[in-house]
């Protein structure tokens, strides 16, 4: 509430050993409060045995805003060994000050701020943290591989209801966004290719660019990145909030493995659906490439597709599909692991989600480079 009244004032006067603090006007939370940094600085700079006294003007209005200021000065006075004269203050103000002293301070509360290690120690702990992070990924991968083996050998069960539900949300619900992005990527590749190739009179070769680019690289990568943002994030958020709600603990204490129960259906769903979505993305990307090529450059459809067939082979298509299997596993692993690593508190879910998306995309880009390099070496 805004309190109407005279503007709050504060001043300081030094008289021998006494520091007189002059206060007046409306010292309320809703009103304009004066700049008191000068006063604080002067008190902090004072030396020797000082006594702080307050002079309150007639008609001063106040609430906890003034109490907070005096409270702060009292703390500085205590640290510097000054005496502070609080007794003459009005009853009401003293009662407000009392409120701040009601609960004793925790002794270990102050320790938290002053704890800054040297940069070598920080570097060391960061490196150790990273190594542990990698170990966790390795452990987690091992765990789900074991769970998968158990599933295949019939020792573990999959909750089919969960699996179908996840399968649906992963694939069917992602169709529009995958279509949109694939259409744009196909169109862009075709347009860029056409503009460049036109200078050499080789417009027909745009089909080579579109086919090769989409099938080998862009189809799988774009689908992977979309699902990292869409599904990987969802996995991390779901599992993270399950962890906060102690649902994971409840599974563990029942002796049900969270890996089998939560991670495996998600991994399998993404592993199966990523290639199908990539296939879908490939088709849309190539079609949109053709639409742009025909519309802008006048490359007729039969020429476009026959040219594509003459240079782009089955192995290009298969390489893209292979990548999509890999990306599916990576995105699901990143999402589930980050979810399981989620800390406590509502903010932690947000952090887990962010980390899942970042890890998912990083892993996609990295593994794509490795696969391309391997393919080039093998001559695929």
């Amino acid at each position, binding site marked *: 509430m805004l309190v109407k009244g005279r503007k709050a004032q504060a001043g300081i006067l030094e008289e021998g050993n006494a520091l007189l603090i002059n206060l007046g006007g409306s010292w309320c939370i809703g009103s304009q409060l004066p700049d008191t940094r000068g006063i604080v600085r002067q008190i902090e700079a004072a030396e020797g045995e000082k006594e702080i006294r307050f002079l309150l003007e007639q008609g001063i209005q106040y609430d906890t805003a003034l109490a907070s200021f005096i409270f702060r000065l009292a703390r500085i006075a205590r640290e510097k060994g000054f005496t502070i004269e609080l007794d003459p203050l009005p009853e009401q103000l003293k009662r407000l000050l009392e409120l701040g002293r*009601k609960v004793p301070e925790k002794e270990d509360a102050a320790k938290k701020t002053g704890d800054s290690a040297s940069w070598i120690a920080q570097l060391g702990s960061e490196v150790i943290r990273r190594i542990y992070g990698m170990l966790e990924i390795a452990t987690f991968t091992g765990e789900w591989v074991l769970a998968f083996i158990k599933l295949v050998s019939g020792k573990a069960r999959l909750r089919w209801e*969960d699996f179908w*539900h996840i399968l649906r949300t992963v694939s069917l619900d992602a169709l529009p966004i995958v279509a949109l992005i694939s259409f744009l990527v196909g169109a862009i590749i075709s347009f860029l290719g056409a503009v460049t190739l036109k200078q050499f009179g080789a417009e027909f070769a745009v089909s080579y660019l579109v086919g090769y680019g989409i099938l080998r690289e862009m189809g799988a990568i774009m689908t992977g990145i979309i699902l990292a943002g869409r599904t990987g994030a969802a996995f991390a958020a779901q599992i993270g*909030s*399950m962890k906060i*709600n*102690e*649902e994971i*603990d*409840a*599974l*563990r*204490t*029942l*002796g*049900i493995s969270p890996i089998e129960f939560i991670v495996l259906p998600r991994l399998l769903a993404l592993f199966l659906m990523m290639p199908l979505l990539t296939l879908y993305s490939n088709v849309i990307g190539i079609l949109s490439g053709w639409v742009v090529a025909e519309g802008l450059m006048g490359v007729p459809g039969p020429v476009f597709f026959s040219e594509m067939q003459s240079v782009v082979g089955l192995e290009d298509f298969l390489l893209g599909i292979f990548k999509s299997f890999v990306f599916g596993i990576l995105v699901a692993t990143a999402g589930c692991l980050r979810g399981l690593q989620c800390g406590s508190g509502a903010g932690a879910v947000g952090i887990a989600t962010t980390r899942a998306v970042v890890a998912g995309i990083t892993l996609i880009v990295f593994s794509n480079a490795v696969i391309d390099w391997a393919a080039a070496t093998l001559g695929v």
Partner: protein
Amino acid sequence: MAEKIQIKVDNLTMAYGSFVLQRDLNFDVRKGEILAIMGPSGCGKSSLLKHMLGLLEPAQGKIHYGNVSFTDARRKVRQSILRRCGVLYQNGALWSTMTVGENVALPLQEFTSLGKDRIAEIVDFKLSVVGLKGFESYFPSELSGGMRKRAGLARAIALDPDILFFDEPSAGLDPVSSRNLDELILETRKSLGATIVLVSHELPSIFTVADRAVYLDATERRMGGIGSPHELLQNPPSPAVHAFLTRNHSERTGEKPSSNSPS
């Protein structure tokens, strides 16, 4: 001693990294009793429960179930011990993607070879026990906090456990619901004959249900005493126990606190 010891906490030290939460805890849980673990916020009550359930590992010391060292046990052994335990978590911890009925049914599906009909029958019965009959097809998000806890209890007693753990059963409940839950706890003990370990800082419920209570001191970071709540109230082993019990006790009996200032 005549009573059989069900759980033995042996020199347990709990720590997060270098921060010691509690050191040298030593106490037993006797068969058939209700043992409360009490203390102020942040003293490590819930962490102690998690240690007993193997969700956290001790920094030092051991936990025994009967003659078996739970701390040293292999995963298989641990799971077989835990299968005899039921846990009610603070917010129920119902699996949010499943209905209430499916939540209660899952332990039965996983660990018994009962047929669908039998399981449905048992689920129906356990939900009636907690007063949630007819809520089988509700999702946890559609229930109130108190109902979620009761559904959590139904799940915890699904397999007729020997030992039940309760993490802050009355937290976040209004006085009436919390009293109802206390009665339900006593009732479950009577009918199932289960040993119950309950974490709580709410004295009304501790005085109502607990046979014995362990006090964890938050500043000393040690066990501050063990005994029946009334014994501890009459002969407090430390000032902290006295302060803890009297402050809460006065709230329970409706006595006015010593001063009228808000504290």
